[in-house]
């Protein structure tokens, strides 16, 4: 009796442990590309910006693969090795990727760590348990991304002055691209009648996007900002009342979060469900959302199409 109880407890613990390990350690980081000084980026967004600024003139490793959870990521041994050899480690900050500090310390090698969101106007989350906490999803506003590009170009130039002109040209080109994308997104959002500019999302990850383009955040299906928590029935009921009262046109489910609850909520309230928005991560290489400008435009098209 006691023995089988122990067996069961061990079984449950090992299951939970194995899955939490899976969610972190087992996902291999993307192999390094390019040649030049070693640069490590934590997030897919920072990786894409380094590529935009430096082309193939740095040896870039992006630690978090597309679609993986950023908060509790743990790099594999190969990635730690590359952190050891890196000259520069670029992190998002705002509570998203603080685990990299431990990784750099363990790896040794003395890479310089730079928070690329330095100088960005940080907003607080609007919904759930993280309400009032700083929102790390700064890349959802092209104006913030321009700041990140400037920070990255400055850090690369300092680390590798020989390629200063390459970095300056890359940064200028991408800056222009972001200005153009900003105008395109604005035009897409203009197509939505003003009374329809309201969003319900799976988790609260589009605060910066909504603030920039004048969209109203009505609510999120999942109570906390990070993925993987359970929706509560009480709060889901309140949200379904809000959707009806506010005349919300669509529920948006991000690529990273299970869309089932959002889908049923949309069905019950008779509104559209839109899946495949990119919130926490860029898309896989080769997809339209593999770059920040592509991701922002893809999201804006889906939002505009659904709310028009």
């Amino acid at each position, binding site marked *: 009796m006691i023995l089988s109880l122990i067996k069961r407890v061990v079984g449950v613990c090992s*299951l939970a442990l*194995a*899955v939490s390990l899976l969610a972190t350690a087992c996902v291999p980081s993307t192999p390094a590309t390019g040649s030049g000084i070693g640069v490590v980026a934590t997030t897919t967004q920072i990786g894409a910006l380094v590529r935009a600024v430096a082309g193939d003139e740095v040896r870039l490793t992006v630690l978090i693969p597309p679609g*993986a959870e950023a908060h509790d990521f743990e790099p594999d041994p190969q990635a730690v090795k590359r952190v050891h050899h890196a000259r520069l480690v670029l992190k998002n900050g705002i509570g998203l990727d603080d685990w990299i500090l431990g990784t750099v310390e363990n790896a040794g090698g003395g890479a310089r760590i730079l928070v690329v969101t330095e100088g960005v106007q940080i907003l607080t989350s609007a919904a759930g348990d993280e309400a009032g906490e700083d929102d790390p999803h700064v890349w959802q506003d092209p104006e913030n991304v321009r700041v990140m590009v400037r920070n990255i170009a400055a850090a690369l130039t300092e680390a590798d002055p020989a390629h200063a002109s390459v970095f300056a040209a890359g940064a200028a080109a991408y800056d222009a691209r972001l200005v153009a994308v900003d105008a395109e997104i604005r035009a897409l959002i203009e197509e939505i009648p003003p009374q329809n500019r309201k969003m319900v999302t799976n988790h609260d990850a589009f605060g910066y996007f909504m603030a920039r383009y004048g969209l109203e955040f009505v609510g999120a299906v999942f109570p906390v900002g990070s993925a993987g928590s*359970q929706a*509560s*029935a009480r709060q889901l009921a309140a949200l*379904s009342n809000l959707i009806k009262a506010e005349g919300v046109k669509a529920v948006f489910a991000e690529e990273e979060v299970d869309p089932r609850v959002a889908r049923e909520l949309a069905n019950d309230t008779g509104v559209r469900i839109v899946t495949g928005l990119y919130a926490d991560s860029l898309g896989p290489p080769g997809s339209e959302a593999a770059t920040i400008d592509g991701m922002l435009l893809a999201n804006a098209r889906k939002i505009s199409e659904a709310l028009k």
Partner: protein
Amino acid sequence: MNWVTEPLQYPFMQRALLEMAIIGVLCGLIGCFVVLRGLAFIGDALAHAVFPGVVLSYIAGKSILFGAFFFGILTALAVGVLSRSRRVSEDSAIGVIFAAFFALGVVILSRQTGFRRDLGSLLFGNILGVSATDVWVTFAVAVVVVGVLVALLKEFTLAAFDPTMARSAGYPVFALDLLLLLLVAATIVVSLQTVGNILILALVVTPAASARLLTDHLGRMMAASTAIAVGSGVGGLYISFHAATAASATVVLTATAVFLACLVFAPNHGLVSSYLARRHGHHHAHHYHAGEQLEG
């Protein structure tokens, strides 16, 4: 708004309550055999061993029922066959197989680098995301499982409690055992998506274990177990709605509270009545005998 009627105006709560009630009947009935035959360990093993099936269905974007049921059947068959060997005891067979299958699930998952969405709903279920189709599928599976169980109730009972007599009476005991395992597997798989891998066992075992404390009669035990399972499922959902807590865990804790109440206050086997009986010098030798139950 009324405590009882307020949640009912939301379709997602209607589906969740309906799903919970169906699962309550299913788990309550099957749970009696799991508890009386000491199958709790294999029940837990089944819940874990279907993991690769869940992962594969998840990756393929299909309902987890297909993959989970395939691996559930495979596990039940493998345990049944392996434990026929004299050298491999049943619990060893279960240990070997469920760890192996779970490891297989982990390996498959570790090869996936793309968007996996969150694993939370695999582990803890998603009762609030249950669709109308899910409810119909659960209902159909419940009808089949309960139908088989009721049709073969006498055979199952005899094979479970007096296999020697059952064998001499010409019953295919091994096949009946295997069939019972398959029914347990079907119950666990169909309940998985509502409460998840980790908590499912509580729905199968806890109501039946509570009922076992209340009565010695199999028929009454099945009725009580079903009532407790449905009651804690529906009650737990109501509590989770009003207290804004995670649904599946609240259901499990509600069932646990019922179990503890039975443990203390049950008329014959409860702690209070045992204590009183001892004080009055009655030796309450009440043992469970399947033979008696059949006639009773």
